[in-house]
């Protein structure tokens, strides 16, 4: 059981990084970014390239990978989001699908089809309460949780966070108060790309990167933000962990002492989770009643 929870934390941290960024963008810009999984892969692949091929140290490679992820997100915003999202909020849905296909092609072109691991080799596992976890995984999980806390602090206790929340509540009202909403949009989109890139690096260190992995990443992040409630970053992060732990429990638990759920149903859990939420609590798990005009 402990092992299953730990497994859930490992998978959940990955999902939380990506869902957190997605929630920011969806909450503030109201934009669906379908290329998020590809952005995660780009962060991961670039880090792999810098570390394994160029031979930089791991921290430098991670910084490099994130810089490239930020740059790609910025370009993506200027070309695929910015010209469209004010016109209609569903337009970027189409443009980012196009973007995801372009990025898929670029990833294949630059990094080939082979699976890539940023740190190949067996992890040095330690036993905690009868469960095994590697040092690398402990670092990854604690780093993710710390990062989320910093994000929380920035959003809730700084002037910058207040501006973001103001823009979330009402774009135009915030602008009339002198907050430069368009600049903030751009910044947040790049931030989400960086967070996704971190997710990709996480994946590349913990498992391995393959070009086809982008879509499942995107889907899980969407499951988390829908279940968490629109624009609710905390909801998204908590739900990312919740879905991951559920996925582990569904397959790993000997239900009623008599049967196991076949592993093939594991991925269905995330999607069932969305459906159940939309049925019983359409506004999401952590939604609060907001006034609207």
């Amino acid at each position, binding site marked *: 059981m402990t*092992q*299953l929870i730990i*497994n859930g934390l*490992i*998978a959940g941290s990955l999902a939380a990084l990506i869902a957190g960024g997605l929630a920011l963008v969806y909450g503030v810009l109201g934009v669906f970014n379908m290329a998020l999984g590809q952005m995660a892969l780009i962060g991961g692949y670039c880090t792999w390239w810098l570390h394994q091929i160029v031979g930089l140290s791991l921290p430098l490679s991670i910084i490099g990978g994130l810089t490239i992820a930020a740059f790609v997100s910025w370009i993506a915003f200027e070309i695929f989001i910015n010209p469209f999202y004010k016109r209609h909020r569903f337009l970027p849905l189409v443009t980012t699908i196009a973007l995801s296909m372009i990025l898929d092609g670029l990833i*294949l072109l630059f990094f*080939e*089809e*082979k*699976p*890539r*691991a940023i740190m*190949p*080799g*067996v*992890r040095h*596992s330690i036993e905690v309460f009868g469960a*095994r976890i*590697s040092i690398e995984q402990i670092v990854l999980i604690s780093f993710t949780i710390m990062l989320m806390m910093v994000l929380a602090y920035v959003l809730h206790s700084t002037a910058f966070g207040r501006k973001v929340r103001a823009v979330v509540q009402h774009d135009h009202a915030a602008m009339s108060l002198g907050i430069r909403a368009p600049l903030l949009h751009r910044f947040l989109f790049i931030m989400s790309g960086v967070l996704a890139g971190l997710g990709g690096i996480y*994946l590349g260190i913990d*498992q*391995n990167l*393959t*070009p*086809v*992995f982008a879509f*499942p990443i995107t889907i899980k992040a969407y499951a988390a933000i829908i279940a968490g409630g629109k624009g609710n970053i905390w909801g998204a992060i908590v739900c990312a962990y919740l879905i991951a732990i559920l*996925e*582990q*429990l569904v*397959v*790993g638990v*000997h239900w009623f002492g008599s049967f*196991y759920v*076949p*592993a*093939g149903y*594991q*991925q269905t859990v995330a999607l069932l989770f969305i459906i159940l939420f939309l049925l019983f609590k359409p506004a999401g798990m952590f939604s609060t009643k907001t006034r609207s005009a």
Partner: protein
Amino acid sequence: MKRLLAPLFALGILLSACTTPVDDGTGPIKLGYIGPLTGEAASYGKDTLNGALLAINEINEAGGVNGRMIELIAEDGRCTGTDAASAAQKLVNVDKVVAIIGGQCSGETLAAAPIAESAQVVMISPISSSPDVTAAGDFIFRDYPSDALKTKAMAGYFKKEGIEKVAAITENTDFAVAFRDALKENIGDALVFDEVVEPGTKDYRSLMARLKDMEFDAFFPNGQTPAAMAAMVQQLREQGLTQVAISHDVAQDASMFEIAPDAVEGLLAIGVPAVDRDSDFGTKFLAEHGEAQGALFFAAQAYDAARLFANAMTEVGTEGVAIRDYLYAVSDFEGVVGTFGFDDNGDVTGMSYVLWTASNGAFTQGEAVPVN
């Protein structure tokens, strides 16, 4: 006018799709290729395509088939049935190829087979090993042995080594599931852990946690791709499980060592004997295309398939039925991978298996694993 043109255009496309392929006897002979050129299984595609190209270039340099050059038209099957089916449609109806080398993944071959069959276009699959390919059609051949045989060899190995409890994780693809089913027929209840996961899954940790609480003698990572298989073995070893891991030749891929060098150490694989790097084929392939992305024998299988087609067309011409009958009569073709022929189902005869062991970043060939 525009209103009229659109349906006419559509009708035109439909009609052009209905005509049967005809080779007019002049110009280059068109040969089709279907394989995963992109996606997770692309290393199979790259190697087999290069192998086929090597053979065709050699044949063309030597004057072609009765003076006609061979032109290879490659289509991406992406290791999926739907893509392979549209690739086959295009090759058969648009390019009107004489024969097809492919598919590579069993899912590709099975999806392309009915299309080739109905158009009477012969297919030789270089590396599809699913037992289902045996009955895929009269025009469908393969020069790689069926997994039905390999599972028998594997069961024999378990018996010899005293392995009584086998734990398997299977990727939900045509190839891997068929292999699992065939193995189960041979070892029955000895398969004590038998889970099927969706293709592309990377997180097997909940299953490993379950394995930790049970008794088993051998772990069988039954993945469609090296990426999945490496992740399975890595996560098994992370849990401190030290049982022997044994698999089929998907494991024999160079990328396994790049992803999980330590975990892969000691992994066993039952596969066909190696293609000699110093052989005539080996030196030529390495000089022209460099190191194989997956394994040299992938390329050798496709090379032999292409040479077989060339032989057939030299002897009996480019008509589908004639090529088919020629291939059924082959009993001792001297290929790069060995001397082989075809049985009544278009399955290869005369191939054998050996046990491969992963050590120090490479697989080394060991004892023979008999099928009985």
